[in-house]
Every structure is written in C-alpha cells, then in structure tokens.
C-alpha cells in the first residue's frame, strides 16, 4: 500500500487545504496553491475533499505504484502517462500495481494534483498534513519528496473498494483502467480566464499615486522566476506611493498584493507569513486564487477590479458549481464506476 518515488520532480509536496486556526501563533497556513484542483482530485477518488494529495510543481515526478491504486490527477496538465501510455486528467484512473506514472514539464498550467483513494497515511501536525517547508513540519517528513521515498497510502472506504474491484479487470493488459466520464469542461472553464485576475482594492490603495493606480489596472505584469509557494514576485510595472508611508505590521492573507519600497509588487500565496508591513495595493479574490496558482514564472497577467459583493458572489457561485459536481460524483459512485 504505497507509492515509491523514482524521481521527485521539481517540487512535489504533500498538501491539503491548509493549517488553519494557528495563525495567531505565527503558524503559516500552507496548503494547496490551487485548492479547487485539490478538492476535485479527492472527490474523484471518493476521498473527503480536504484529504492530503501531492502538489506537483511545473516538472512532475516519476512514481511507481506498489499496489493497485485508484488515483485522479487534476490542475495544470503535467502530461501524465502510465508505462508510456497517456492517462486522462480530471478523471478517476485505476493504476495497476508495478506500473510507473510519469509526468513531464507542464504543457498547460503550472501545478498538478494527485490524489489517491484512501489518502496518504501521514500524521497531521496541528490539524493538517500540509508540508511547510521552512519550518520542516507536516507532509512527508516536513520536506519535498526525494528519490527513493516511499509514500504510505491509506485504506479506501468500503464503497470505493468495491468500485475498484470493478475496474480491476485491466482490459488488454493495459497498465491502467479508467471510466467513461470526467469533470465537464464547463466546470473548468474559469481556468481559461488565465490572463486576467480579479482583485479588490487593498487597504492602502489610495496611498499610491494616481499614475501607479492607473498602471496597476491597465498594464501587464510578469511573474518572475523568484516566485514560490510563499509569494509571486511581479515585474515590468513599478508602483509608487504618493509619499512614504510608515506602516505597522498587521495581518495579511492569501492573495494580498503588497508593494515593498522597490515598487515591484509581491502576491502572497500559500506559504505566506501571517503578518506583513508593506502597503497593500490590492487583494486577489478567493475565486481567482486557483487561476493564479496555474500561472508559471515568465508568464504575464493583468488585474481587474471588482467589489467585495462581486468577489463574494463569484466565490459562492464557484462553490455552488462544486456542490453540483460533488452530487454528480456521488451519483456516479452509487451507480458504479463504469469503465471506458
């Protein structure tokens, strides 16, 4: 009941939906950069949607399955194949014991998620299995995966196990078996809005000079290579305050766009600090954080302003969409995973 790591990829970590409730002790939230993709990967294999999964960054790993495993790969397309045969993403796939799942560099998006039925048998730290690299806590030994790691898998729920048995026939000696349905394109269409990220004004928006405020919404920023799970550093447009601003450290959150004195904005992401002292020009809305997570260094993006009401409405309709998907998947589970 395990997955053996042949090659770790660029940065592959165990993540769930994050370590909430401890920020007042300075504990960083961490968790999936693209929580939507992680939740769907779990739902596709019959897991609780907040179960831990692998987050694979840009260049994916090579993994050998030591047991028949029901998995789902979602998020950016890191071009997965099993024993050389391409496997579909956004779909449950039963991988035969002894097979090798190989990813390449992302052909679309930046971060892929791999969930396995039963989840990973890894201890929680402060209520979460997410890896926080800098403190070396959570996930697999508090670090990114390395060659020869062996990831223990949990036991799938009985209902899931009986469905796995239906798929276990592996037609034509194929190294994997899939089903004849997947997450609809319509549910994923928001990822195509890639270039434009919606934001609300930040607390210090009006402290920036007029030219900077205008540039922020009208020009394109580039994601620099100095971007990681802590934050995206942007370049190509610099932003200036009207006059120097003495800031006292206060809380920040996922999607906070802060501007240090050099004028190049930083978007705070999953492994952000709990507090910060730079002026905040804007705040990415929750519904668009998955889109940001799929933008690679070197790519460009622009920002568009929405109101708090719009931001919350967009989030609620995304959750509604997810709710419909959840119900559809439950129905598929009840009827049995029909084979493709």
């Amino acid at each position, binding site marked *: 009941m395990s997955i053996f790591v042949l090659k770790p990829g660029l940065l592959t970590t165990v993540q769930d939906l994050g370590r909430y409730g401890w920020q007042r002790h300075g504990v960083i939230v961490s968790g999936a950069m693209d929580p939507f993709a992680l939740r769907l990967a779990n739902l596709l294999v019959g897991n609780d949607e907040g179960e831990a999964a692998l987050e694979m960054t840009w260049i994916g790993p090579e993994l050998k399955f030591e047991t028949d495993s029901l998995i789902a790969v979602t998020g950016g397309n890191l071009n997965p194949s099993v024993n050389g045969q391409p496997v579909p993403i956004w779909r449950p796939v039963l991988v035969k014991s002894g097979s090798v799942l190989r990813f390449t560099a992302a052909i679309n998006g930046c971060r892929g998620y791999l969930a396995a039925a039963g989840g990973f048998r890894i201890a929680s730290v402060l209520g979460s299995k997410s890896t926080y690299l800098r403190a070396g806590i959570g996930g697999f030994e508090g670090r990114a995966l390395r060659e020869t790691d062996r990831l223990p898998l949990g036991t799938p729920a009985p209902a899931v196990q009986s469905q796995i048995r239906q798929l276990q026939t592996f037609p034509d000696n194929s190294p994997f078996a899939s089903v004849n349905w997947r997450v609809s394109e319509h549910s994923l269409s928001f990822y195509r809005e890639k270039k434009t990220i919606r934001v609300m004004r930040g607390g210090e928006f009006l402290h920036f000079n007029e030219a900077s405020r205008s540039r922020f919404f009208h020009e394109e920023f580039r994601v620099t290579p100095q971007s990681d799970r802590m934050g995206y550093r942007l370049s190509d447009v610099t932003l200036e305050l009207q006059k120097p601003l003495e800031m006292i*450290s206060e809380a920040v959150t996922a999607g906070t766009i802060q501007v240090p004195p050099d004028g190049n904005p930083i978007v705070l992401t999953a492994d952000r600090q709990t*507090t910060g002292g730079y002026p905040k020009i804007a705040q990415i809305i929750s519904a668009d954080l998955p889109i940001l997570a799929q933008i690679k260094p070197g790519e460009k993006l622009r920002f568009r302003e929405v109101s708090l009401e719009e931001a919350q409405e967009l989030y609620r309709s995304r959750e509604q969409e997810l709710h419909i998907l959840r119900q559809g998947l439950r129905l598929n589970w009840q009827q049995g995973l029909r084979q493709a």
Partner: protein
Amino acid sequence: MTANRSCRVTPLGDSAVLVQFNQTIDLETHRMVKSLAKDLGQRPLPGMIEYIPAFASIAVFYDMLQTSFTAIRSGLLDLAASLEQQIDDRPNTVEIPVCYGGELGPDLEFVAKHNGLTEEEVIQIHSGNEYLVYMIGFAPGFPYLGGMSEQIATPRRQTPRLSIHPGSVGIAGTQTGVYPIETPGGWQLIGRTPTALFRPSEHPPSLLQAGDIVRFRPISREEFDRRMEQGI
C-alpha cells in the same frame, strides 16, 4: 476602565476584515487589541474561522458561505464598543536562557563596539530589561518584543545571512527578538537560546503569547549544551 473605542473595520479581501485601532505601537493600543482578542477567543463570532492580533489591529477571518462582511463587521463594532481595557496585573512571565557571544553570538562584539560598550555591558543591558510581547508574527512563534534599551540599538547587517540557526537572539535597530526557525535574516546575532519558541507538537505551539513578559537570563556554554542535549 473603558478603552478608546475608535476603530476602523475594513475588508481584508473577500473573507477577512481588519479592525484597526491606531497606527501607533503603544501599551494602550496593545491592551485594546489584547482585550478584543480575548473576547473573540471566548465568544467567537458566528462564521469566524480565526483571528490574528497584531500591534494595533486584529484581522478576523470568516467563512463567506456562513456569514457576511456586514454581520462580522457589526459583531466586531459591538465588541469594540464595550471593550474593557485589559490591564494584566500578573502577566505571564517567561524566562529565556541565552548563551551570549562566542560562536553562538557572532555579532556581540560588533554590537558592543557600535555602542561604545564592552561585551559584558551589552549582556547586562540586554538581560537586565523586561520585554513585552506585542505580537506573534513573521514566523511560527516569533515574538515582536518591546522594551529594548536604546543603549544597545544597532542597525541590521549590511549583508543578511543566508541561514540563521533556530534560537538565535538578535538585535535590529531598536528591536530585539529570537528566531524560532531556520531562516535567512539580517539581524545582529548576540546569542542563542536552547529553548524552543516553536513547538509544533504542543498546544499552543508558540512558547510566547501576545501580552507575555520576557526576561533573558545569561547562561554558560556548558549549560547551553546540557539543555540542548536534554531538550529543555
């Protein structure tokens, strides 16, 4: 005693609000923050996920499927209006043993020279004061401390170190602090404590809490090594 009730409540993105009392770091503001944090800890607002107190503000995170900005905002304004300023007669005092100087405090000599003092005087001044934990932030368990003597104030290093050992005690400007985890940083390192400030397997995971009083106690290298071995 009723606190100064003026505060701003503004959105921090679509799922949090920021309550700002002042834009100053002072004891009175700290007490208001602490008092609101206590209220929120004892009687969480419906739909609240967690809160982060800072020097002069508190952020409250909420689930927007369960509550609204308006509801959270009015809940916070009600709490703020009836805030009793917490004056803690017996704050929790935490003693942090520190082995000053030598290889554990490579910048002690610089701090002394910069201020025209001997190393021994720097140690006496640093360990002679009481420090108030204004807030925890930046890193897990990192305390922002108030109360350092200007006599030992020293600017940050020109070139930050790429890696600083956990437990390192440093000075940056008029601030002093302890690094709980390994991180890069530009503080002048004057010593190291064997005491863990971030303890992920304990509840709470942070040794220090906002409002605590910290005292540094000089220890020998032998005591440091012994405590490291025993994990205390």
